[in-house]
């Protein structure tokens, strides 16, 4: 099924309208609007300082925009402006229906808790109290992200960077969120390690039908994962469309520059 077909048959999951955020005169992001549908993967690309990270922080509820609205289709109440949620409601959403994968695994996993405990935290935080089931679920997810089960009780600080990042993904996906935010998920990893991570990610996103917003400067990541692409420059979205369209036939000079620089790499 193409992205366009998915869009036609489903209702909006995340509805973003006119989101702007500036810091003391410095523009973070400016008048960003888009709609995300269930199961759709949106890539946001741009250089550092383009506003993509500011936008992601706003979308994930970690930063309050100056203007605009961000509505999410909650399971209980349908479309709700996430800015109107109380802090505990937002935190609950963030650890159940959402996932957040940070660039640095250190920000997203507990380094002094075993891999199994890391994966079990979300289920336990929403009431799981059967050790055997929690552990079985941890094993299932370690399998999915291709971490050897013999490492279940090891602390992530003994893991390679790629394993840590895959553990972070498992820890997020275990509650089967409907929307995952990813901030440079392959940043800081070797190219060979990136390939495996992207492979795992692509498999999971498709298998689970998760919607995702991936912020990256790496066009190879969006080429592989994203159905749709937004290109940001100086806080604004300057070009958007289906990923292959944008990458193969970029209209804006800035996008052309981005695409050509990746081709040279």
């Amino acid at each position, binding site marked *: 099924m193409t992205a366009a077909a998915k869009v036609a048959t489903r209702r909006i999951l995340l509805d973003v309208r006119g989101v702007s955020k500036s810091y003391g005169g410095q523009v973070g992001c400016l008048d960003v609007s888009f709609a995300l549908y269930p199961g759709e993967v949106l890539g946001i690309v741009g250089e550092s300082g383009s506003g993509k990270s500011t936008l992601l922080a706003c979308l994930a509820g970690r930063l309050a925009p100056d203007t605009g609205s961000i509505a999410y289709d909650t399971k209980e109440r349908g479309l709700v402006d996430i800015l109107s949620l109380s*802090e*505990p409601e937002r*935190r*609950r959403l963030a*650890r159940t229906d959402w996932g957040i994968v940070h660039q640095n695994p250190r920000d997203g996993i*507990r380094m002094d*808790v*075993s891999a*199994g*405990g890391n994966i*079990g*935290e*979300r289920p*336990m*935080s*929403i009431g799981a*109290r*059967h*050790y*055997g089931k*929690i*552990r079985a679920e941890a094993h299932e997810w370690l399998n999915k992200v291709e971490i050897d089960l013999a490492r*279940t*009780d090891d602390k992530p600080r003994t893991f390679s960077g790629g394993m840590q990042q895959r553990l972070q993904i498992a820890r997020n996906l275990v509650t089967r969120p409907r929307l995952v935010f990813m901030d440079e998920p392959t940043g800081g990893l070797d190219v060979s390690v990136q390939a495996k991570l992207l492979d795992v990610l692509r498999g999971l996103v498709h298998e689970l039908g998760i919607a995702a917003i991936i912020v990256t400067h790496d066009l190879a990541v969006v080429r592989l994962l994203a159905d749709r692409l937004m290109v940001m420059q100086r806080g604004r979205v300057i070009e958007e469309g289906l990923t292959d369209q944008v990458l193969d036939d970029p209209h804006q000079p800035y996008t052309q520059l981005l695409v050509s620089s990746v081709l040279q790499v």
Partner: protein
Amino acid sequence: MIQVMSSNTETSKGYNFAYLDEQTKRMIRRALLKALSIPGYQVPFGAREMPLPCGWGTGGIQVTASVIGPADRLKVIDQGADDTTNAISIRRFFKKVAQIVTTEKVDEATVIQTRHRVPETALIEGQILVYQVPQPEPLRGIAPRQIESRKLHAYAEYGAMQVTLYEDVARFGYIARIYEYPVMVNGRHLMSPSPIPKFDNPKMQNNPAIQLFGSGTEKRIYAVPPYTSVRSLDFDDHPFEVQKWKQSCAFCGSGTSYLDEVITDDRGGRMFVCSDTDYCAKRRGAQPGTSEVAGSPAGATAGSSS
């Protein structure tokens, strides 16, 4: 019982009754009332300097000083015993500054201050159990910063605490924590029971007595009102269990009390005896340590202060 001192709160020795001034006591009582109305919630309070070193139960002493009246009878235990240095000095302190009657018998006491144990003898309505608490925050080590641990309490986000139990089972095959075993109070607040053995945790559940907790160093007070649910965290397939001993008490034969292992000679001889000395003595029928009456007759006539 919190009693209104209508007059004469000065003792003959020149201290205000129970050492603390009345304003401080009122401040602590307000904190206690708040703590009782939100079971398990840690209430900050303006802890005062006490004439005992920190770590000697200054938090518990301030709580006791704020709830005790002239008609009360005070028992102080440390690790279950009334005759340890810590217990003796606290008892002596209150005899001096409040001229109250002290006792070693749970049945006679109206206020019991404790370090590390809950008495084996069941408490009754009207009694107050005051715990000395070195570290009130059960989430320390999980949320290093206080602002975060307060949020976790406020939003009842206790998943990470359960993770520490998971880690135990993954590592040892069972929940290895023996002391300071975390409890959920009234189905809402996670609470540290102070460093009592987990053996004592079930006694907190549905207890008819008032349970008050004071930490002087961390300036926190919390409470469990009578007949409140106090559930020890566990897993469905690894349920909470208390320690068990193969032996019975060598003195009284009790097979249900918390036992200490004591070395009887230098050839490796050892035996197991009740840690709760009052309980053990009562079972043996020989009751040492009847009420000690302080110099002043003020508290001696107290029949029932509940």
